[in-house]
């Protein structure tokens, strides 16, 4: 029969083995997570070159106003493209451009239209969109708004 001190020596050795194994696993998983974090950061940096951030307000005309701040959209996006990124859009296309008829299921009421505006930082006020939303190119930091307007 094994003596008490020897028994504890083997128990300690067994714990040493489990400690080594768990330390290995911890270092390995930490190393993997760091590797994934670096890949994610690199991907994010690449994404910076291919995308822009815009801020979009959607006013449904019934008191509901939703802001989509810091929305990442592809480079060279038009307002229509960006709107389709953040919402479900219904529209019709004419020779002179695209007319948005519904956003997230809201639209189609008589004498009520989806009009878009952009924020003029120099004048510090909202301006009416001068062209169809499919022809307005967005730039990084642009602030735009869709307002369901009745006449």
């Amino acid at each position: 029969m094994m003596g008490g001190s020897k028994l504890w020596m083997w128990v300690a050795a067994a714990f040493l083995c489990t400690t080594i194994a768990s330390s290995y696993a911890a270092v390995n998983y930490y190393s993997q997570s760091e590797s994934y974090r670096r890949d994610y950061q690199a991907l994010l940096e690449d994404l910076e070159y291919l995308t822009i951030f815009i801020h979009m307000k959607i006013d449904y005309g019934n008191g509901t106003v939703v802001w989509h701040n810091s929305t990442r959209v592809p480079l060279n996006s038009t307002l229509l493209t960006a709107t389709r990124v953040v919402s479900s859009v219904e529209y019709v296309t004419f020779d002179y451009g695209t007319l948005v008829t519904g956003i997230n299921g809201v639209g189609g009421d008589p004498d009520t239209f989806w009009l878009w505006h952009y924020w003029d930082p120099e004048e510090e006020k909202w301006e009416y969109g001068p062209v169809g939303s499919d022809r307005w190119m967005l730039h990084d930091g642009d602030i735009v708004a869709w307002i369901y307007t009745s006449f």
Partner: protein
Amino acid sequence: MTVALKTALINPSQRAGVIAVMTAACVSTNYLLVGVVNVKLMDLIVFVSGFIFGPSVGASVGILTWLVYGTLNPYGFSLPILAATCVGESLYGVVGGLLERRTDGNSYAADGGSLWFVNARFAIIGFLLTFVYDLYTNIVSGIVAGIPIVVALISGIPFAIAHELSNAVFFFVGASLLVKAIGRLLQGR
């Protein structure tokens, strides 16, 4: 008669034969498991060789196995790494031999309920020996490849885990079985 006493009776030619047979077993199982990286029966066989036939036989089996397997290796040949693995592998045989001398073999020839404890001790020894082996060979590999040792150790962790855990299992299941089986063979049963 204990295994240790019996093995002392083998003559030089028998000794050479034993080394050849055990080396052949190591090499053949290595190639058999070539697709399973770092999971090999070699370490167990080398350890048992040392345990039964003494440290010098164990070390010889380890070195000769790596001289064959390390030279004709599907993962490539590197002389410094071959030298390191030869030295590292011989550790299993030497420790096996020293362990048998220290305990006189009897405490490992158990059966019944205490067999579990004996096997657990073999598993612990196998795990720790493999840990030392992996540490040593990963450091040498890092130096040879010219990469920082920390990087070599970290990148080798998945392989080390597979190696150490599989060896712990192999030593638990196979060490006492092999010792007993070879002991009976030597006793002419």
